[in-house]
């Protein structure tokens, strides 16, 4: 029983970051049909900025750790939004709906950004002190307070995004633009602006994940890339462009990892994950919640 709870807790912890990361990706994919390989670079940028801002704020400005962290979080999100706006306007804006073109463009951007991070930060892993030290015991499962906070924030952000997409006018416009830009314009939806918002929200979600992850894992210039592959698997399983799908998919993959890693080993769990995905897509090619075209 205790084991079961611990595995469940593991699933939630791992899943929380996956979900946040995948949501941004699925949004960008859903709205602009961009397979954004550079999404991980947004995540990395945010995490790197946190690792350099926190020491700066606590040492140079002398503010307490939590304040330094919050400051760093704002800075990180702001920087990522600017990077996002920049790459959108010089690049993605021109390859919307071109799956292969945007795919390659994002690879080019990824190479540039990763090269830049490596040049600026070097390859060594960096870290920030835990903002919320200590561990918590929930129904017999142990987890750090920091991770618990991550799960909670992730849940709140996810819920907010769900409401935004399903219940608001902007959400309706985003979905409409995702399906047919010309038709969206004919309904009075300023499509370029909406697409930019979609892209920026996606980037902000990645930044959010990066900010939350920084105090937990080591940050390297390639941290984000490692989440990327899984995030793609998640959004395909969940159905492209679907918010609920990204949530279900993220938790599903986290569960495969956590249960498979426990009963076998992580390497086998990785293999199992890929095989499950293949099997899954053969049975339901459109993902859990996707519609058939």
């Amino acid at each position, binding site marked *: 029983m205790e084991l079961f709870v611990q595995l469940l807790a593991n699933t939630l912890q791992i899943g929380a970051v996956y979900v946040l990361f995948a949501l941004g990706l699925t949004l960008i*994919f859903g709205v602009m049909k961009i*397979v954004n390989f550079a999404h991980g670079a947004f995540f990395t940028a945010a995490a790197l900025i946190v690792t350099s801002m926190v020491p700066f704020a606590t040492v140079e400005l002398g503010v307490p750790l939590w304040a330094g962290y919050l400051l760093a979080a704002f800075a990180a999100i702001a920087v990522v939004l600017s990077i996002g706006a920049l790459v959108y306007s*010089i*690049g993605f804006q*021109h*390859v919307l709906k071109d*799956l*292969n*073109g945007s*795919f*390659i*463009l994002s*690879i*080019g*951007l*990824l*190479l*540039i*950004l*990763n*090269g*830049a991070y*490596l*040049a600026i930060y070097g390859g060594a892993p960096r870290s920030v002190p835990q903002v919320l030290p200590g561990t918590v015991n929930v129904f017999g499962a142990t987890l750090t307070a920091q991770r618990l906070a991550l799960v909670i924030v992730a849940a709140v952000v996810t819920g907010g995004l769900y409401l935004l997409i399903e219940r608001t006018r902007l959400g309706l416009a985003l979905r409409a633009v995702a399906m047919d830009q010309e038709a969206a314009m004919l309904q009075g939806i300023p499509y370029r602006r909406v697409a930019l918002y979609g892209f920026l929200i996606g980037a902000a979600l990645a930044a959010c994940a990066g900010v939350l992850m920084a105090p937990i894992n080591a940050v390297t210039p390639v941290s984000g890339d490692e989440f990327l592959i899984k995030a*793609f*698997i998640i959004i*395909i399983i969940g159905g*492209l462009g679907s918010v609920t799908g990204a949530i279900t998919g993220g938790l599903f993959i986290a569960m495969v990892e956590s249960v498979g890693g426990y009963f076998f080993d992580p*390497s086998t769990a*990785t*293999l199992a994950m*890929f*095989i499950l*995905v*293949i099997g899954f*897509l*053969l049975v339901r*090619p*459109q*993902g859990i919640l996707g519609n058939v*075209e």
Partner: protein
Amino acid sequence: MWNKSFGVWVCVALAISSVLFALLATNGYYASLLVWILTNAVLASALRFVLQIGELNIATAAFFGIGAYTTATTAVLLGWPFWLTLLLAPLMAAVLSALFGWVTLRTKGPYFLLVSFAVTEVIRLIYTQTNVIGGNSGLVGMFPPMAIDAYYPALAIALLAATLFALYGFERSDLGRLFKAIENNDAIPRSVGLNVVFLKVLCVVIASAAVGLAGGIHAYANTVIAPSDFAYFVAVLALAYVKIGGEGHPFGPILGAAVLTLVGQWVAGISAWENIFYGAVIVMTLRVFPGGLVGLAERARGLVTRSAR
């Protein structure tokens, strides 16, 4: 029409002079550079070949690997004759890709992209966990027979060029038309009694056989193979060749492969800036000439016919 056959003759001439160059070159580097370029060109052309039916086949990387591993295993572990090991590479790739296509081609678009990606990773993980074929260390020591050794680059170039011509031939035939029709609206070919699934599988099989052969050639050219050489990123690079060269024309991927391979060689050695430079080349090319280099050439000749809608 004159233009078309003229272009083909230019390519034939290019191919023959490459082979001659490889035979006469005193510095092995340039001959092997040509082999890399053509290997990449086959990868890119095969990727574009499947793009005809509208699918982005990441498993191109996997079948490249299957060709290479087939040749390497039969040559190193079983000691089979050179020509047989080379012949088995495309055969094996064709057979396995038929199976792969038959199972996976029910999915489309991004879903197919991901299934093919997952298959590529699964195959790679299987190599890493199989000790007989060297696990993660891979296989070493594929050398062509002594009698051929000195001519191997020339032979490789000839075979790869022939593969490229074969792919071009398929594209120009009625089969190419059918592939385009499937891409455009597969209900139409279905409605007139064509077996669309079979045709799609055929398309993947042809492309996979081509990369399978390239894989076999690569095994001998490189003398070493390891699982990480056949990760999905191989297909991503191939797509970059296609995009940079221009996907609207069969010559595009070849040009793209040549340019990016040379750029890659040229920048090798500038460490962290290598990635930035490589990335910048990709981004700039995409932004400045959206139709790729071939598109640029056509625009320059005022031949561009933009499709409506």
